[in-house]
């Protein structure tokens, strides 16, 4: 396959990546660390949610398996409660990012 060809084998064509680097804090390393911290939040929430499901299954059945966890469908009440738990987690952990002094300017 030739790069850029829109072939039947792939049904895809060439594309153009963004031209602007996303550095907002005058230091690419700092931007990267922030992104890593935010991405870790998504990994943490995946573990928290898994814990929630496992606790529920253990309470209901006394046992748990990977298949039971993957297949589990939360009730509407559970889904709402877990969404609230997620939002409290986000506010609690990432609220610090709003603590910027309006008069302070980043170096550079």
């Amino acid at each position, binding site marked *: 396959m030739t790069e850029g060809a829109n072939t039947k084998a*792939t049904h895809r064509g060439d594309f153009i990546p963004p031209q602007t680097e*996303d550095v907002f804090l005058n230091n690419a390393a700092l931007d990267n660390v922030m992104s890593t911290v935010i991405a870790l939040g998504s990994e943490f*929430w995946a573990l928290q949610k898994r814990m929630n499901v496992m606790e529920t299954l253990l309470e209901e059945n006394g046992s748990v398996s990977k298949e039971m966890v993957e297949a589990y469908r939360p009730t509407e009440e559970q889904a709402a409660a877990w969404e609230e738990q997620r939002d409290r987690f986000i506010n609690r952990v990432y609220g610090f990012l709003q603590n910027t002094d309006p008069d302070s300017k980043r170096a550079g």
Partner: protein
Amino acid sequence: MIDRRTLFGAAAAVTSAVASLFASRQASAAVRTKSLSNDIEVRGTYSEGRLERLPEMDMESRLEFTQGFRNWSLRNFGRKSSRRINELVKEAGFDPKVSPPIDDVLDVVGDDLTVWTSVRCKTTAQQIMWNNLVDGFYANKDGYLAELEAADNSGPGTLELNASLSIPDYTKHEIHIQPGGYIGDPLGGYVYHYGVNVFTLDLSSEDVFHRDLAAIVPVPEDGKMERFLDIGTGVAQLPMAVKERFPDADIWGIDVGAPMLRYGHMRAAEQGLDINLAQRLAENSGFEDNSFDVVTAYILFHEVPTEDAKKILSEVRRILRPGGVFFPVDFKTYTQVRPSASGRFNQWWDHVYNNEVWTEEYRDSDFIQLMTDAGLVVTEDAPTLQKRFWNSVMATKPA
């Protein structure tokens, strides 16, 4: 290190045999949902059976976090950042309610930490959303490619792919920084669909918005609505919904992106919706003159340069029958509404860092005048789902 081009190229080399179709039916109270033989429904579907649950709970949970974080970034931190922008603009002697030129806004914002930290958050929210979806779907890329392959020749409905189509450069950008964009990732339809649900803060949306939109699509004054076309149809959610409203009509959707159309066709077939999807250009659709009663374009034109928009509008006029209706649902242009300073800043972010390459050109254009110049008769009080947000325009082809 494998870059995205290598990844997509390798994935694209995978082919699979096509097996028999419609092996089983999945019960659903709301829709006629079918399962294709290669269908991947490891965890079933959401409540109405229209949207498959993501293949792994961890992938779904990460997306839930992203949705929550995006919500917080926009409605909590984002509002604080917007207030800060407007304060800075006001301190500089401008009226923040009517934005000064973007260069002036950027000058007064300078290096403000609140603003740029907020920008970092919403940009990263986009990035981790796409990373999670690409990582998750590519973990079983052979399975998804096989699922698409099996669906390509299934029905009801048809899928026309054009391997020799010359794809315009303006469509090749990674819009919304989606890896590969709409044409470069063979699994782009999957990635887009779940990503756009996060964008609209409705993770398990089962075409709800598109069904609401289909309900207000205007019909010609004579009431005849036998043939319908959606241009830039993407994953075909709107033509699917229009088919449900007009089950006897001949429904078409065209798009430049084969990955989007393949995914859309698969979903339409699963739901038993007889629609026709084709890989064609909106500016050169190949349809006969006067052949459609209604043509729609949902959030297409802000992804198109003005010169190409003119070509598309001319093509729309050609293929609409006299009295036919054109319904282009998109954002308001700057001729329709002047944004606040913070609104203007956020639109600039969307253009530069969310890679909405043509949105500034669209907002700077007089889209109503462009439709008029194309020979359409414009109505500025069209049906809309939210008058404050959408452009609320439609047009008819004169007799």
